[in-house]
């Protein structure tokens, strides 16, 4: 602690000097914190708030980080804990309000970002939190099942089954069997159509399947 306390905006805006390796690493990992936060929250602004809270928490508890271990996994653990604790607090304060906010894109601002999402991104929103986080960590974030289990504070086998169920749910949602939440026109290519087209090319229906299709054609 220095004697100078006048840190209220009298400094010119500049990038911090990367003299502290911990800080340098934090800076490098911010993009991934934002990506994970976005996948948890959905809403970009809430996600950035969460990522910023995470940085503060990480900085405050930097003494508990063991050098040489996985800093990214450590940060993701903090972020995830913060996400659930923020949400519990919000529930306690205004359960009805939060509940509505979780289910429905309330403000027009939220609707505007929801409309930009691809089909897969929207399908992802309709998974349970547990399945979504496991799938993102392993399927997009490149974490091992072991690291994902550490981050989610559960057994490796639990992560594996969550990822498997998440993949299955996503496929069934993209098949269009389950309604997508707020399926706004995105103007983007349709991922499900693309996937189905690939499937059709690879696996021409067998005679048996053709008969079944004919029989069921009135569906």
């Amino acid at each position, binding site marked *: *602690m*220095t004697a100078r306390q006048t*840190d209220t905006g009298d400094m010119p*805006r500049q*990038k*911090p000097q990367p003299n*502290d390796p911990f*800080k340098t690493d*934090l*800076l490098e990992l*911010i*993009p*991934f914190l*934002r*990506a*994970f936060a*976005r*996948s948890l929250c959905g809403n970009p602004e809430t996600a*950035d708030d969460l*990522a*910023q809270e995470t*940085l*503060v928490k990480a*900085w*405050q508890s*930097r003494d508990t980080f063991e050098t040489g271990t996985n800093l990214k996994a450590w940060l993701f653990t903090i972020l995830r804990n913060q996400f659930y604790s923020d949400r519990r607090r919000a529930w306690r304060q205004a359960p009805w309000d939060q509940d509505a906010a979780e289910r429905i894109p309330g403000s027009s601002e939220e609707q505007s970002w929801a409309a930009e999402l*691809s089909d*897969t*991104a929207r399908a*992802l929103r309709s998974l349970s939190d547990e399945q979504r986080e496991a*799938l*993102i960590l392993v*399927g*997009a*974030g490149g974490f091992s099942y072991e690291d994902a289990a550490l981050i989610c504070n559960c057994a490796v086998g639990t992560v594996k089954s969550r990822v498997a169920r998440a*993949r299955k749910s*996503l*496929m069934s949602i*993209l098949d269009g069997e389950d309604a997508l939440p707020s399926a706004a026109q995105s103007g983007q290519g349709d*991922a499900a159509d*693309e*996937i189905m087209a*690939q*499937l059709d090319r*690879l696996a021409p229906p067998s005679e048996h399947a053709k008969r079944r299709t004919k029989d069921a054609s009135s569906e």
Partner: protein
Amino acid sequence: MKTRQRAIGRELRRIYEDVAKEPVPDEFVELLRQIDRRGGKGGQTDS
């Protein structure tokens, strides 16, 4: 089945990487600068 999983996997990575590739907003850099100068252990963050 495998092809579909791969396609979905690609899309998931794209969704994640699209955010990760965004330039880091200034607030983040500013925040790190501030907490650094406060010594990190201050009670400033308990709003």
